[in-house]
Every structure is written in C-alpha cells, then in structure tokens.
C-alpha cells in the first residue's frame, strides 16, 4: 500500500531535469511550426536544452520523490549523465547525417528529447509502474525516430521490426511486472526487496517466472542474447545518427533499469538470477563477437559489437555488488565515447547517395584521410580494449568486479571472446592502413561531426590515461547497492 502522496515542490525539484526536457520537447514541437525555415534553430535549441539538463542533473540533489516512485541517487544521476552525453553526441552528429540522408522532419529533435525524457525517468524509476512507463516513453519515441525516413525502405523495415519486437518485449515485461506485483504485493522496488527478502524463491515458481519475464523484457531492451536479434537489423536500417544514439543512450537507460530492478529489487535472491545473467552474458558475448567476425557492413559490425559490449556490461550486473554496478556505469560511460566516435567516422564518410557503409569503403583510408583513419584506429583499439585507451579501463573494471564476485570462469570466457573481437576491430584498421585505397574519398567535414570526433577522442584518450575521476565517481555512484 503506497503512502498517501500529496504533490510537493521537493518532488518537482527532484524531477527538474525531466520537467525541463518535457517543456523543451513541447517547445520544439511548436518551434517547428512557428519557424519552419530555420534549419539551425532546432539543433541549437536542442543542444542548449540538453546541456542545460546536464547542468540540472549535475546540480540536482539526491532524494526520493513522488511517494517513493522517483528516486534521484548516484545511480540515477550517473546514468542520466551517460544518456545526456550520448544525446549530445547524437545532436552533434545529426545535422550532417540528416542532410546526407535527406531527412527534414522537425519532429526529429522533439522526439529525441522525449526519448531522453523517458530515459531520465527510467534512470530514476523506483517503481515498476514508472519503469514501464518510462520505458514505453523512450521506446515509442525511438520507434518513431527510426522510422522517420519514410521514403527509405531500410528505415521502414527497421522501424517495423523494432516496433514489433519491442511491443512484444514490453508485453512480456508487463506480464512479468504483474506477476511480481502479485507476489510481492507492491510495485515499489524497495518494498519488493523487503518483501522477498528471506523468502525461499525456489519454492515460488511464479515469482521466479515474474523475475524471469521481467529479465527477458529488460534484456531485450539492452540487446542481450537471445533477445538481441532486432539489434543488427535495426541498427543497420536506422539513420546512422539514430543508430549511434540507440547504441548508447537507450542502452544506458535500460541498464539503469536493469541494474536498479535486479539490484534494488531482487538482490535478496541474487544467487537465483545470477546464473541466468551469467548465461545470458556469455551467450551475448559469444553471439556478438562471433557473428561480428563475418560482417561486411560497418554499421552491422558495430551493431554486433554493441551486442558483445552488452555482454561485457552485464558482468557488472552479474556481480551483484557495488563494485559491479560501478563498473557497469563506468563502462557505459566510456562506451558512449568510443562508440560515438566510431559512428561519427561512419557518418563523416557517408555522402549523399553513397552510404559507404561497407567495410570495403574503408580500404586505404589512411592514405586519403590520415586523421580520420587515425581516429578510427583509436576507437577500434578502444573497443577492443587495448590500453591505454579508455576501453581498457572500462573492461578492466568489469572484469575486476566479476572476478571479485567470484565469477572467474565467466571472466576467462569473456576475455577469450574479447580476443575474438580483436579480430574484427583490427580488420577495420587493417583495411584502413594496410590496403590500397579503393578510390579517392573527399570527406567534407561538418562542424558538428568534427566537434563530436574531438570530444570522443579526448574522452577515449583522457579516460584511458586519467580514469581516476571517472572511476571515483562511478564507485561513489554505486554506493548503496551492495
């Protein structure tokens, strides 16, 4: 039974970033109608808004609001930052990508903002109802974003597939929530945790089923195997900027939910679901890394790579410790930089009428565009996890957390699979540096993408060389999730 809640300003203050974003979204919807000709107005507004939100998130204080439904804590704030950083990148990449793909909808930015709103809500959701709604808000916005290129068959198909599977997943999730609600008598995560603590979960199959179905839904959202199959198709079909966005921000938000649900809600029966998560993580890493080997399109390869990275990130959740949670956060933050960097290169290389998404288009890039190739090299090594790039720090924190939680076997498998991953990341490097050019490539640089590339580079090197601050922040953010 929920405590009676009366609207108060404190709750509103806690949700200030979300409120601001909603206002921004509405403003954008209107701006599109009011100033149709202004091409830079919307991105500028969006960027300002996102940065403001970022400021609000960082400046905001911790607390619980809306009668326990909304919680702002380290975890929430950290994941919000990751989502917002991902969004900053996306906005930077969008302008050029939209030009190249010929997308002119003003709704683009407002939908982006609504999606981010959903993510922030998810990160703060302390109640399964809010979890569900936040998730839907985010998902519905992204379905639209993927499908916005209406004349593009691939985008249509991607949106369709994403929608069908997403709807299915949310139905399953909902069913899981309903079962958990029934057996715990509440949807508040803290209360659920209190309820099931000390209960013998093994003798309550329906509770297990609830958790299992909940897990299925969330695994779908993060793109973990065997619920990952939407990822490659949707990533390939979506406008590249949105692909980049999807690989970072919604994933981070979904991880926020996954972490909060599993750690705040179901930690008492950690040993029951840990086996499942271990299996899912292993399967995810295997599927992602192995299938990525035989890809010929860079977008698809990055899609599979992102599946693999989900597998790594799951190690932190699997650990079920404060350290594990911090590691996952850490990792996703770093992943945002390196993956966005990689997608920035992909976007920069594409020209109107020429997608240049095939790996073959990267042959000899080092000769024609040494800087771009060098950056791509950096991102690829970072994705592989080779020090001194940030990717290594992220992976290391995860491995450490999992080993410390006693999952050494899983970790050994993970590192072996990451050696497999080296092969396909290296292939890009090989093509760029060690093959003859496949024809001249004049790459027009756009300011947004350039800034994004710069940011990503600074992030990947900076976080690799001086990760202290990030690691501290992440570990502080993880406090309270034993």
């Amino acid at each position, binding site marked *: 039974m929920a405590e009676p809640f009366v609207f108060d300003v404190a709750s509103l203050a806690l949700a200030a970033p979300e409120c601001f974003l909603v206002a921004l979204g509405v403003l954008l919807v209107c701006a599109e109608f009011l100033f149709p000709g202004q091409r830079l107005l919307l991105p500028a507004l969006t960027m300002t808004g996102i940065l403001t939100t970022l400021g609000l998130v960082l400046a905001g204080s911790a607390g619980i609001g809306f009668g326990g439904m909304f919680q702002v804590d380290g975890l929430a704030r950290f994941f919000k930052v990751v989502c917002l950083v991902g969004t900053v990148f996306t906005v930077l990449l969008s302008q050029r990508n939209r030009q190249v793909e010929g997308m002119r909808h003003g709704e683009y930015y407002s939908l982006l903002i609504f999606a981010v709103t959903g993510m922030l809500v998810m990160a703060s959701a302390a109640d399964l109802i809010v979890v569900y709604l936040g998730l839907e808000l985010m998902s519905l916005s992204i379905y639209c974003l993927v499908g916005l290129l209406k004349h593009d068959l691939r985008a249509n198909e991607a949106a369709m597939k994403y929608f069908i599977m997403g709807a299915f997943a949310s139905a399953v999730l909902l069913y899981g929530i309903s079962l958990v609600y029934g057996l715990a008598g509440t949807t508040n995560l803290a209360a659920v945790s209190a309820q099931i603590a000390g209960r013998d979960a093994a003798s309550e199959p329906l509770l297990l089923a609830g958790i299992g179905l909940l897990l299925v839904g969330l695994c779908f959202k993060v793109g973990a195997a065997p619920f990952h199959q939407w990822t490659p198709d949707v990533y390939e079909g979506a406008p590249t900027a949105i692909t980049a966005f999807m690989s970072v921000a919604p994933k981070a938000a979904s991880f926020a939910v996954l972490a909060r649900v599993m750690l705040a809600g179901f930690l008492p029966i950690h040993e*029951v679901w840990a086996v499942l998560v271990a299996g899912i993580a292993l399967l995810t890493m295997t599927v992602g890394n192995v299938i990525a080997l035989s890809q010929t399109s860079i977008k698809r390869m990055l899609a599979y790579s992102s599946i693999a990275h989900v597998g790594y990130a799951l190690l932190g959740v699997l650990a079920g410790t404060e350290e594990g949670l911090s590691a996952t956060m850490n990792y996703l933050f770093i992943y945002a930089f390196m993956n966005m960097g990689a997608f920035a290169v992909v976007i920069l290389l594409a020209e109107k009428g020429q997608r240049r998404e095939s790996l073959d288009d990267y042959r000899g890039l080092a000769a024609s565009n040494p800087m771009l190739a060098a950056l791509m090299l950096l991102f690829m090594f970072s994705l592989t996890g080779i020090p001194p790039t940030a990717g290594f720090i992220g992976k290391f924190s995860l491995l450490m957390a999992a080993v410390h939680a006693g999952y050494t076997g899983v970790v050994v498998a993970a590192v072996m699979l990451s050696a497999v991953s080296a092969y396909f990341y290296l292939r890009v490097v090989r093509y760029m540096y060690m093959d003859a050019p496949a024809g001249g490539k004049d790459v027009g640089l756009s300011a947004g993408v350039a800034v994004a590339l710069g940011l990503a580079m600074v992030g990947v090197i900076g976080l690799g060389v001086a990760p202290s601050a990030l690691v501290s922040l992440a570990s502080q953010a993880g406090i309270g999730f034993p």
Partner: protein
Amino acid sequence: MPLYLVLLPLAPLLSFLLTLLSGKWMGSRAHRLPILAASISLGCALAAGWDVAHGVVTDADFYTWITAGDLQVSFGFLVDQLTAAMLIVVTSISLLVHIYSVGYMQGDPSYPRFFAYLSLFTFSMLMLVLGNNFLQLFFGWEAVGLSSYLLIGFWHQKKSAADAGKKAFIVNRFGDFGLSLGIMLVFVTFGTLHYQEVFQAAPGIVGQQFTLLGLTFELPTLIALLLFCGAVGKSAMIPLHVWLPDAMEGPTPVSALIHAATMVTAGVFLVARCNPLFELSSVALNVITVVGAVTCLFAATIALVQTDIKRVVAYSTVSQLSYMFVACGVGAYSAGIFHLFTHAYFKALLFLGCGSVIHAMGGEQDVRSMGGLKKYLPITYWTFLLASLSISGAPGLAGFFSKDEILLMAYTTNIGSGRFAWFIGLVVAFITAFYSFRLFFLTFHGRFRGSTEQRDHLHESPPVMTVPLILLAVGAVTAGWLGSPEILGGHSMWDHFMAPVLGRAEAHVPHFTEWLLMGISVFAGLSGIWLAYHLYVRRPELPGQLRESFSETYRWLVNKYYVDEFYVAVLVQPAINCSRYVLSAFADATLIEGVVNGVPRLIGRASGRLRRLQSGHVQHYLAAMASGAVGLLVWLYLV
C-alpha cells in the same frame, strides 16, 4: 707477471686486428706485421722456456673474466714445462709457416686476410696453451677452431672448401659438446675451474659417483671421458676424425701449421694437462688407449691408397696423433708430448714440402700426375726425404726417438690395453713407413706423369719457401735428441724436464727387452721403406695388380671405410628430414599451426553459420525470443 707473457699472445692479436683493418692498404706488404708479431711471440716463448728451465713457473691471473655466484673465471696464464714446450712448438712453427706463406700465397687476392687469419690462429693457440683454467682453455679451443674454420674455407668461392670448413667446425662441436659438459662437471665437482685448484683437489673425488641421464658413473671416469670427448674432436680421433682429411681444402701452409703441428695436437695437450684427473680413472685411460690404437691403424690403412698428396699426409697425421694418445693412455704423457714435439717438425716439413710440390705443379695435388720431381725440386726432395725418414722411425732422426718411447711405454705399461696398443703401433710403424715412402717415390722418382704444360713450369720454390723447409728439416732431424733414452747414451732430458708436470712413467724392463723392442720397430720401419721401394720403384706394375686382386679391400680403403657416408645416412640426412618433414611440415605447420589457425577458422565458420540465424524474418526473431523466454523460465524452475 712477466711482460713477455702479456706480449706473447698480444702481439699476434694486435697483428690480426691491424692486418684485418689495414689489409686493403697494405696489399702485398700485409705479411710484415704478422711475421713481426710471430717473431716477437717466438722470442717471448723462448724467454718463457728459459725461465721455466730455470725453475720459474708462473701462474697468474690477468683479469677476472666472468663472475656469477660462486663461479669466478679469469683470463690468466700458467707457464710450466708443458706450456713452455707447447709455446716453443707453436711459435717456432708458426713463424716458419708465416715466412713460407709469403712465397706460397703470393698473388692471392686475399693475401692480407690470410695473414690476418694466421695471426688470429697464433693468438688463439697461445691462449689455449697459456690458460690457467679450463674455461680459458675452452676459449682457446674454440678460437683455434674458428681460425681453422676460416683458413680451411679460405678459398670460400670453392664449395668444397666452404663445405670442409663448415664440416670441421661442426664435427668439432660434437667434441666440444662433451668438453663443455666436462668443464661443467669439473666446476660442479670442484667449485672452481682453475687448474691448480682442481688438480690439488682431484684425488679427493676417487670413489664418488655421479648420475647423468639415469646412468651412474664413477665421477673421475665421467669427468675424464667428457674431457676426452673434446680431445677426440680436436685431434680427429675415431669417430670424429672425418673432418681432418677434408680440412686439406685449406692452403697448404695452414695444413702444416694447424692441421699437423699445432691445433690438432691440442687434444693431446688437453689430456696431458689434465693428467691428474685422467690418472684417477683406469677406465678412461683404457678408453684413450684403445681409441688411439684403433684410430692409428684405421687412418694408416686409409693412407695406403690415397692419391691426393696432402690427404696421405693428413691420414698420416691422424695416425701419428693416435700414437700420442696411446702414449697418454698408457700414462706416458711425457712421451706423448715428446712425440707431439717431434711430430710437429717433421709433419710440418712434410706438409710444406707437399706445398712446395703443389706450388711447382701449379696446384696439382694428385700423385698420379707427378713423378720424377727430384731433379726439378732438389731442396724439396732432400728435405722431404728427411721428413719421411723421420716419420718412418729411421734411427737417429726425431721420429725414431719419440715413437720408440711410446711403443716401449705401451709394451711395459700396466694399463690393460697396453700390449694391444703396442702391437698395433708396431704394425702401423710398418704401414707408416710404407705409405710415406710410397708417396715419396711416387712424387719424386720415376718418370713425370703430368701434362707437358705442367712440366714446362716445374721449378724449385723461391728461398722464402725453401729456407723454412731447411730449418724444419733441422728440427726433424734433431728434435728427437732432446729425449734420447739412456740406453742410447742420452739422458732422457725431456722426461726429466717434464716430470714436474707430467710425472715420470718409468719403463721397468731389462735393457735387453728395450733393445729388442727398438730393434723390432726399426725393422718394421725399414721393411716398410723397402716394400715401398720394391713396389713403386722397382716393380711399378705391381700396385695395379695388387689393386686388382684385393679390389674389395681397396674399395673400402679408398672410400675411407664409408664413415662419411655412414654419418650422412645416419645423422645428417635424418636430421634434415626430421627438420623438413617432421618438424617443419608436420609439427609446426600442421599440428601447432593447425590448432593456431584452426581455432580461428572454426570460429569463422561458426560465424558464417550463426550469421544465417539472423534471417531477416521478424517471426524467426520472435520465435527465438519466445523460446528464449520459455527456456529461461524452465531453467529458473530447474535451477
């Protein structure tokens, strides 16, 4: 440490470096520095001999070479009677060969290089004999091997020369394998590699045992045998004798210096030097004796049928070296070193004589194309005759004294295989005389069998070559007098001189027996000479008939008992095959690489398969998701 000791090896070393660096510029004057250096060395060696003769034995460290844990090895010099004798042999013959080479190598495009190498060799050999510890011995040991390698392959454009050099080095490595293990065992046993310390402690190890590769040995025996391995390699004993005949590919002065007088005797020097260790093991002594005796006969028989002038002498060298080992084996180290000493002179003389002949013949080495050279090469003829007589043990010449001493000691020793060795030695004395004079007669007597062009160019060598011949001939005649035994009115000076180092093996036999033995061996030698004269001067058609009637034996001899072929079939080819087919093609390329490349290939194939699971059909995806969900539930229930 006296200055001359430092100068002794330093002079040739500097000469080597300078000649190598300035070779181009020096051109045909390149011999000056090496000859100067060799002279300095000879002077120093004489000084050292003088000092030693006056009882001054030097044992001093120069500087510490290697320090690691309790291992401390120095470069240092031990100059005692044995060293002194070796020094004189080495430096004197080295100097003569240097001088001789000025004539012999004239006009060779790599003239400076040759002299540089000679200096290097002199340096190495001096380091070998001067060393006061095992590791320095090993240093010199390997360094002379290197010089030998370089000089054998001096004409490296010739494949056979390059092959021979390589073969010499590698075969020697087999010996060094044992030697180095022996040195390690010495260190492990005694905790030091210094001669004096080892020899002082040596008696203490009698009765100790050591297990190597699961076999348990008497410690002294094992040490002695391992060290002897080195000697077998360097001194070309069976079974490692195969390199020495091939080494004749080198220029003839090299054969004289390295492959007759000095380097190949290093094995004998080693055994003599380590006599306190060898004395502890009768097993080892017997082994040495038997190996010596067998090699002796083996090499001599091969020498019977060789037609290459240098090869005959080479096999004769192997055979004579065996005598020295027999001497060491029966405990008569002094006699062995004495033979080493005399042999150095007459064998060097033989080789240089051959060189003179070859020089005259324009490079021809086959005796079948020679004959009747007596009138063209008088000096060479007479010196060669003296050397041949000496080696055949003609009374009064150097070889007579040393060989007789050995046979006597072999006869009288209490080492089990002594009598056997004596008998073999006697037979070989006969054979030696025979083939030496066969060579002599074939070369200098009869009619000339070469081409007319060769005949037109026949000429005696220049003085720069003949003078060394004459000087060596003096040595070949007189060297033996140093050790003339008491029954011949001598004082056994050599034995007395060597006694502090090598001990004295007294032959306790009546004078009559001694006379008898001497008579028998002289008779064997003289009959050999007579037989050669009979076959090659009086009845030149007979050898051909003999060849016919003993064709099978002849074939074995000419092919050197097929030892080389045996090694190729048993060692070389299997190793190459193993390398190519077993290791390279199978183990590496198939087995290990199979796994290394196979696993990625497997993953790649799996990737291709799994990739197709992503069919594009949304229903398939949904089915996978639903199945996954159901599977998850079932798993949750079951866990």
